[in-house]
């Protein structure tokens, strides 16, 4: 039994890699999961562009009003009016381009969507008997769950990055505060939120033996989690009941944090610290819950 002294984490990468292999060996599924956020981006971000709604190009001053100003005053006034759209956008969304605002929402949405599938893979493994086989090997129960969390996290981070890359030709504009280093900060946000979310969905499905359960959970949580967040609209503009949900939704913190790093003109570091802390605690608590549940419930 000399190999008993092995690390408690052995098998973690093997199990994670198993899931990742299934994913990159089936590019169709991978491409399909990208289509939805891209459609959102194209439709809502580009076709129904909110920035064009608040533009002032249709505003002309009545002639009798214009005659009361000197040409210099008139010049200043028309400049004020032509900037009004950008000012409103900047004030409401923190950027003049709505598609940039929404693209960050879609990055987080992709993370949510991908992690939801991690719940399904637990059920599949149980149904197909793989879980039983893994449980009869010396691999730790926590590792079985962590490998699922980790693979979902890596997958989500990759897909979210693709969304960012696709958003650029669609009109995504980086903010004034953006430096390439901020990308690392974005990855940190994605890593934390994906850890938390995939732990959540795995914990929900850990006892389930039927594939319908995770599907129902996905349908139930998908829309509320997306719309009760700052994905499409700033929280401040929401009705108070929705605001209450959105302000506790960790996705909102993730999106707002990523917006600071990617599209805003300046970064408020104390806000950023709160955003990291909130998402970090969310991730830590749920991962811990997932591991505790795996100890309790993987063995019946």
């Amino acid at each position, binding site marked *: 039994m000399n190999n008993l002294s092995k690390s408690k984490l052995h098998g973690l990468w093997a199990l994670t890699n198993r899931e990742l*292999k299934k994913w990159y060996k*089936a590019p169709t599924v991978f491409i399909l999961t990208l289509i939805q956020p891209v459609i959102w981006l194209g439709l809502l971000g580009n076709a129904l562009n909110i920035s064009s709604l608040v533009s002032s190009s249709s505003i002309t001053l009545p002639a009798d009003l214009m005659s009361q100003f000197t040409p210099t005053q008139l010049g200043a006034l028309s400049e004020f009016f032509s900037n009004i759209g950008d000012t409103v956008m900047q004030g409401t969304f923190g950027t003049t381009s709505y598609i940039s605002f929404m693209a960050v929402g879609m990055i987080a949405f992709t993370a949510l969507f991908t992690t939801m599938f991690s719940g399904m893979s637990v059920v599949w493994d149980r149904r197909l008997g793989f879980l039983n*086989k*893994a449980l009869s090997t010396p*691999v730790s129960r926590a590792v079985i769950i962590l490998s699922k969390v980790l693979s979902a996290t890596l997958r989500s981070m990759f897909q979210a990055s693709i969304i960012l890359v696709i958003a650029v030709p669609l009109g995504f504009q980086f903010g004034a505060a953006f430096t390439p280093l901020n990308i690392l900060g974005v990855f940190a946000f994605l890593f934390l939120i994906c850890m938390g979310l995939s732990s959540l969905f795995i914990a929900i499905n850990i006892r389930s033996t039927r594939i319908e359960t995770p599907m129902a959970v996905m349908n139930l949580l998908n829309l509320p989690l997306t719309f009760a967040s700052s994905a499409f609209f700033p929280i401040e503009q929401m009705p108070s009941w929705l605001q209450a949900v959105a302000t506790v939704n960790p996705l909102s913190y993730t999106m707002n944090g990523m917006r600071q790093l990617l599209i805003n003109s300046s970064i408020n570091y104390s806000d950023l610290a709160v955003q990291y802390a909130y998402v970090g605690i969310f991730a830590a608590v749920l991962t811990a819950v997932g591991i505790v549940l795996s100890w309790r419930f993987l063995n019946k």
Partner: protein
Amino acid sequence: MSENAIKAEGLTKVFNGSLVAVDHIDFSVKNGEIFGFLGPNGAGKTTTINMLITVLKPTEGKAAILGYDIAKQNTQVRYSIGVVPQEYTADEDLTGYENILLCADLYGISRKVSTRRAADLLELVELTTFKDKKVQTYSGGMRRRLELACGLINRPKVLFLDEPTLGLDVQTRAATWNYIKMLKKEFGMTLFMTTHYLEEADALCDRIAIIDHGKIIVVGTPTELKDSLGGDIITVAIKKDVDITGLVEKIEHVKQVKKENGSYVIKSANGEITAPLIIEALRKEGHLVTRLSLTKPTLNEVYLQYTGKSMRDAEDSGDSLHAKRMIMARRRH
């Protein structure tokens, strides 16, 4: 190390406080033997295996594998055993080779060792030429062989096979039997298998336990169990309708005579020797033997004797068992 590879004492599993799947069973498996767990579907075979391989926690009682307690020393147990499950658990999207290496990683075997072992095992189960094909292209027999290879990757001292030939055609089943026999011969390992095929248990197992409704009914070698029935069965029919029971009972080796459907069912220790004696004795008395058959008892008769029903009947009345399983599956989540 103890002489017993597996020892179970009062092992019990109750699901959800009411459904007794395994009911206080005691048995021991000696080192190096093939031990068969025989019983109809739903008898508690898989539940017993799942407890022994540390996947299910026993509700009551205890068991030890190679002296390691399945509850308290489960890590040591897991390192010492191999499992070939009832289902095909190999990942369909991966190749056979990748699947074996994955199993090796679950035991923390270094890549250097595992690549060599995987090559040997693929050779053993004759999958070397298909090792880089995805498992979804494999036939049922190939998958079963791959499961076997995966179960052997950690050089287990005790190998558990849960219904190793379930759903396989006759040829593949025979081939699987050969692999199992070879494993015992080459590696000298202890094998614990469940089956509901009587002929399989008869052909492979050194000792058999018959389990029904969660209880072990009888344990013994196939020969012992068959002998316990009272030997071979000779069925004789004569032309005239006279009672010959008393006459036959006096013949050497005959243990029991019963009249059934117009013919006589005779139990005897050495059927081959007794049969001519019976014909001889009857002819002397002027009775013309019209038909005679000699049957060696199979485990089917053993099963019938001990459970009061044939395996087939037990499976047919499986409706209730099926319902029981559905309840179990439903309650589990």
